[in-house]
């Protein structure tokens, strides 16, 4: 009996008895329009809307004022987002007859434009009717939350409506029709491409293939080259062997011939041995080549300019020793130079292929 009386007494207490920082409107059963209505917490809320001027021309701007008042309030309302209220949406959608311009944005944007007595707040908006078909502003719903006087018990959401506001929108006189300026464009814009090509389906695909195909394309050609080389060596072993034999035989014969010349070699014979060697190895045309012939043959075979120059220098020295007895180069030196030249040529990697 006593506890029942206590419960009744608690319910009769005004909501303001509850501390403000305890009030957290629950998400459960929260109406969609609660936040758009300003999220006010308290009791006895009333809403009123007025438009000034209530009579205006199409496209003119009026001030719409929303006034919210409460009997008691724990959390005052923020600026209601009218555009999100379901009742106004049909009028505010694109191509509809009403334009609502919210207050300027900023840190103070959510605050009321006027607080009248601590329990009454006013918010201003700009309203622009675009057509004379707008005759009234419909009643607007505002959701608030009323907390329970007992902290342990949940409060409840409440809805209050403003009255409909009549509007008189006068149509402006239609503007006189003005013929647009004539079309002046370059001649090429008036050309029309015709023919079956206009119905073609042109594909703009990638320029490069995917990575696997790209790797395949990069790896296959070198492998093909190596494979071709291996197959060639197997199919034509004679050609390979001939080249090797020719190489070893010519070099061996030339070295032996140079050694056989003895301690006092004859210069023309030294030159002839060297020329015979080059003839056997690289197909030198002449048996008594000039330095220029030697240079050309070696360069064609793939020798470096340095090596070709040395060979030409050798034959030049031979000519000098033969036709200029006063030459400082002895036949003995020339023989050693011929041995070195043959060894150098044989050591060249490109010479393997001859």
């Amino acid at each position, binding site marked *: 009996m006593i506890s029942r009386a206590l419960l009744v007494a608690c319910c009769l207490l005004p909501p303001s008895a509850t501390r403000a920082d305890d009030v957290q409107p629950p998400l459960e059963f929260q109406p969609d329009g609660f936040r758009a209505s300003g999220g006010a917490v308290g009791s006895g809320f009333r809403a009123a809307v007025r438009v000034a001027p209530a009579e205006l021309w199409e496209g003119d701007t009026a001030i719409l004022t929303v006034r919210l008042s409460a009997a008691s309030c724990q959390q005052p309302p923020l600026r209601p987002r009218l555009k999100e209220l379901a009742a106004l949406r049909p009028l505010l959608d694109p191509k509809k007859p009403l334009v609502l311009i919210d207050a300027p944005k900023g840190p103070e944007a959510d605050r009321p434009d006027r607080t009248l007595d601590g329990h009454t707040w006013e918010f201003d908006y700009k309203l622009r009717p675009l057509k004379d078909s707008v005759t009234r502003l419909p009643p607007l719903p505002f959701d608030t939350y009323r907390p329970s006087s007992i902290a342990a018990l949940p409060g409840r959401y409440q809805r209050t409506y403003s009255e409909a506001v009549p509007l008189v929108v006068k149509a402006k006189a239609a503007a006189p029709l003005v013929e647009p300026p004539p079309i002046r464009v370059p001649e090429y814009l008036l050309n029309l491409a015709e023919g079956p090509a206009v119905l073609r389906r042109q594909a703009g695909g990638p*320029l490069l293939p995917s990575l696997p195909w790209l790797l395949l394309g990069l790896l296959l050609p070198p492998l093909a080259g190596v494979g071709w080389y291996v197959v060639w060596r197997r199919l034509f072993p004679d050609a390979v062997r001939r080249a090797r034999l020719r190489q070893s035989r010519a070099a061996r014969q030339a070295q032996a011939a140079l050694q056989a010349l003895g301690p006092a070699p004859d210069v023309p014979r030294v030159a002839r041995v060297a020329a015979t060697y080059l003839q056997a190895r690289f197909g030198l045309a002449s048996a008594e080549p000039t330095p220029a012939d030697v240079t050309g043959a070696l360069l064609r075979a793939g020798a470096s300019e340095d090596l070709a120059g040395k060979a030409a220098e050798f034959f030049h020295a031979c000519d000098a020793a033969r036709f200029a007895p006063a030459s400082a180069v002895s036949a003995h030196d020339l023989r050693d130079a011929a041995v070195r030249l043959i060894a150098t040529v044989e050591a060249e990697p490109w010479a393997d292929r001859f």
Partner: protein
Amino acid sequence: MGGSLLTVLLLVPAVPSEGDLLAQGNAAFRQGVALVPDPKQTTAARKSFAGAAAAFEQLSQSGVENALLYRNQGNAYLLAEDVPRAIRAYRRGLQLAPDDFELRRALAYAREQVVYSPPGTLGRPAIDHRPPWLPHLPGASLWVVLALYVWGCLGLARWRMIGRAAWLSAGLSAFVAAGLLGAALWYEERDRLQEQATPFVVVAADGVSLKAGNGRDYATRFPGIPLNRGVEARLRFERGDWLQIELAGGEVGWVPRAAVLPGR
């Protein structure tokens, strides 16, 4: 049963064929051209061009895509005073035929019609530094690169066999040519992939503000310098009804989805 099926078939509107659409667009375009010389028929001419553009648009949506169609479509839109859609059509055409002189010339003219907000260069398209005489590589270039590469590999193999210096120089020359052409191909492919990753968009309305975030409440990036119809940009992200775009100068911001035309 059969009667009701017949009724349904009769009620379903017949879908025009591609040939019909093309003929319809061509006829409307020619009608517009015929009205151009008469200054009193400007509105009627623009209506005809708009009709032609709609037919060409329907044709391209059905899968027909080529530079000629997009040129016709762009011209029709431009003559109907729809600069953003004209720019979009020309750019779509240039994606298929990057060297098409007519498309380039028409796009340059359409861009001249765009009202860029002073001051500065906000929203202006980037200057194309590619020499006009330098053609874009066709898709068949890859086969040329491959042939040169194969020729280089086989040339070196032949040089290794018989040792003729001519084969060595031929193989190396083929490698150099394949490398240069391959690099050019890679460069163009990189541009194409970038175009795919960040497709172009065209601003479709005047006075569009570039916002710092995806909502009207965010600050305007360049107060007092709105983007007008025809400004081109690249699409970076989409979030709900907002798109993050990047202008040619590198400026990034958000615009409402409804304020731009997608390039694709």
